[in-house]
């Protein structure tokens, strides 16, 4: 077990290192650098550029600068934004918090709802509740987020006037102030993720319910609901862990479209803004954070699967 854990953590670290290298290299090979960008609007001459590069220490070999950047990132210091003043960690920190808030709310609604609907549709296969929920899920999956977002804004904030259609709170405000503005984006996100997870859980429940051990449990005299909860669900929900993890990673990685539509100050919008501002250090940092989140969430999901699945658990604990 310990061996496996060490192996997976090492593997995760290697992944993050490679990703950071790729990010750094990608920014490096783009034409121009921070100085051409920063001084671009002043029609800078060569002298000014040289001075700027000296100031920003851009003349050293890329490998040295990478080592410094990576070292700083590991210590939590992501360096300075392209304006040379603002600390990236403070801009990104707020945005990360906001993204987390959005993700947590969406998960809190979406995951339980998805599991419940998945189980119900799986048990009522091909009957009314299944047909209705499955059809709706297909709609939720196929309609692009910005369309459903716009529709919801139209219905709930323009026609009915129940909820604000856009987020006006500033990025650094405390979490509580985002309510009720956050509700519409949360609903849109929940819809999309719920549909994905539900369909997976449904097919998993159907497969398990057709299995030999469910037939055996029935012929052993176990009543229906205890059979579903004790024999079927622990097995049927195992594969859901990884799908949920992927969805969470997707949520934390910045849901760019939704954040832009609702003007929500999260990581995704910061990413878009930084790209259009050519603020490469910030883009670099966000990419690194998103990559780490993916690695961590997947690692957590794998560990959870291993703990929840006796076959995997005993493989490492009993020899």
């Amino acid at each position, binding site marked *: 077990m310990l061996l496996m854990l060490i192996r997976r953590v090492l593997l995760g670290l290697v992944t993050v290192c490679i990703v950071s290298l790729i990010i750094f290299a990608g920014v490096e090979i783009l034409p121009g650098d921070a100085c051409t960008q920063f001084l671009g609007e002043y029609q800078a001459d060569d002298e000014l550029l040289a001075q700027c590069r000296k100031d920003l220490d851009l003349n050293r070999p890329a490998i040295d600068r990478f080592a410094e950047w990576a070292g700083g990132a590991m210590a939590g210091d992501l360096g300075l934004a392209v304006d040379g003043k603002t600390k990236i960690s403070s801009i990104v920190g707020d945005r990360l918090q906001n993204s987390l808030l959005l993700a947590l709310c969406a998960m809190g609604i979406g995951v339980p709802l998805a599991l419940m609907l998945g189980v119900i549709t799986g048990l009522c296969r091909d009957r009314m509740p299944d047909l209705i929920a499955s059809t709706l899920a297909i709609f939720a999956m196929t309609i692009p987020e910005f369309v459903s977002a716009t529709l919801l804004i139209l219905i709930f904030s323009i026609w009915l006037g129940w909820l604000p259609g856009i987020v006006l709170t500033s990025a650094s405000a405390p979490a509580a102030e985002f309510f009720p503005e956050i509700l519409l984006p949360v609903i849109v996100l929940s819809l999309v993720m719920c549909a994905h997870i539900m369909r997976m859980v449904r097919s998993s429940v159907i497969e398990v319910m057709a299995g030999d051990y469910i037939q055996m449990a029935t*012929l052993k005299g176990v009543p229906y609901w205890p059979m579903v909860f004790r024999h079927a669900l622990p*097995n049927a929900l195992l594969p859901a862990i990884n799908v949920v993890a992927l969805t969470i990673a997707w949520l934390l990685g910045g849901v760019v479209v939704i954040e832009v539509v609702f003007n929500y100050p999260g990581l995704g919008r910061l990413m878009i803004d930084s790209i259009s501002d050519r603020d490469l250090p910030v883009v670099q940092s966000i990419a690194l954070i998103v990559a780490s989140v993916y690695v961590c969430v997947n690692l957590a999901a794998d560990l959870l699967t291993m703990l929840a699945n*006796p076959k995997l658990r005993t493989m490492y604990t009993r020899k």
Partner: protein
Amino acid sequence: MSKQPFISVKDLSVGYNSRSGETIEVLRNVSLDINRGESIGLVGESGSGKSTLALAAMGYFKRGLRALSGSAHFDEIDVLALDRDELQKIRGGRLALIPQNSGQSLTPTMRIGQQINEALRLHSKVGASQFQSRVIELLAQVRLPDPTALITRYPHELSGGQQQRVAIAMALAGEPDALLLDEPTTGLDVTTQAHILELLRELAQERNMAMLYVSHDLGAISRVCDRVVVMYAGEIVLTGTARQVLLAPRHPYAHGLLKSIPRLNQTSLPLALDGRPPMPGEAINGCAFADRCALVDEKCRTTPPDLHPIPSGENVRCFKSDMIADMPALNRKTGQRNSARSDVDSAALGLESLAISYEKKDWLSSLLTPGAKPQPATVDAINIRIQRGETLGLVGESGSGKSTILKAIAGLISPKEGVLTLHDNIILTPRVEDRPAPTLRQIQLIFQNPDDSLNPRHTVAQILAQPLRLYYSLSGSALHDASVDLLERVRLGAHYLDRLPSQLSGGEKQRVAIARAFAAEPEIVLCDEVTSALDVSVQAAVLDLLDDLKTQQGTTYIFVSHDLAVVKAISDRVAVLYQGRLCEIGPADAVYEAPFHPYTDVLLGAVLEPDPDIAPNLSADDVVELSPPAQGCCFQRRCPRKLGEICDKETPPVRELANGHIICCHVPASDL
């Protein structure tokens, strides 16, 4: 006292609605009575409706199936009229099922203790405080080792035999009056099967239970049943006492079924039962068996026979039950089998001190567990020379390394040590990717389960075209002609070319797999349990086909099977393996007669013959060993003839007897 039998099924028909809306019958007017203390065997090919009948007796129908007419009573309760809640009170309690595949029938996320506990809570009268001790008692009753430790285990941590015992313990938890057994020993090793059957026999007698034993294995049936019911195409065709049905069957189907079983005391191949049973829904005008029957006449094709009593006491659904005794009993090719063997001493394949290990070491585990001793190799010290045109049988229980050796020959795993030679002069490179095409062509592999080895989306034509293109660069009409020729050699017609595997029966699929192997015109064909997934009657036909192909082409076979009788029927020489080590090798007749290696003796003693007069001779327990011992004889821990320390410490000597018969044992051959 009840007047009705304990379990009573009357004129039951079961069916489903096809896509076109017709009702298709799977069971037709079946009646079956079982009294307390009686055990009845239900026999038939797959698809004959035997499991459906057993489950219907519990009021259970698989998805889509339903009772069309008739009744099923258990202790005068109409199980077809009960609602779900009332049924659940009986199921697993007074009426318990032991399933076919316990590995898949135990819930993987629940501990053994929890699963038996659940059965106790639902059905037992003992108080909750006694559950724990009762679970341990039940596990001990089915003779599982160390029951206290076992209750915290998960099903996957147990061997197949142990899982089956847990399923039995779970059925006993409800203190049943009747047991339904759905092929409870199919898929188990011979020794395990024999032990489980003995256990069931004793339990049935002890508790005076009614037992319905569903199986296609007549050997197992003969061991546990008083009466036997034979089913064919959803109908009962013969009922009688076990002795009557197994020794002098009075229905041509039962006769054919019995003759298709290979037996230890026969040297010839069993007689194949040609044709296939009608599919459910297929129109049957006369007798359902008419198309496969040697005694068929005009009446059989037009008038369906009734199940009627005959003077000797059985009930038979046949017009000609008095003519069965004159039917052929032996394979027409008896005695010709060995003629193909070449007497020229030229080796097809040589295995020299072959050792194979699955253990993989990586830097991290060796860093964290320094000094860990490497496990003994899975397969070790195998020296076998296989002559051209010879059939070598490899037998042993699961885990004996039989399939591993085949994989190494095929190049699918690299041996740790040893050399493989083709024709004494070509050294086979370990990995199949490195072998040149001509060498690849010469060695072909046929797998156990054609469902897994044939691509379900390829037609038979596509499946056969692959080797023909690869090795002979055939295309167009030459490819088509070669494919048709191959199909004819495996006794299938050209019209099979456009079919997909799902449109073929089990036997037909395996024939296609055989045709694919023979498309390469190989010299050596490796057969990995090729008949284990097939019905006995189909198995006989496949064995017959393999033998014909060998006679025509002088092919060399390595035939792996856990069924000793099958191996004896097809092999010239037999090698007995235990834990990846060779115990005994020699001409088939010599291996199956004294002197035996103690392990061969144990294996042969556990074989169940379809004859109620032959009892198995169980001399060793059926404990499953997971890895071979580090030193000494591989069989030391289970050997009934163990001498003492010498067996634990020293590798047994290779004793050569007459005719190349070799036994690896410390006990002198004269004492074996």
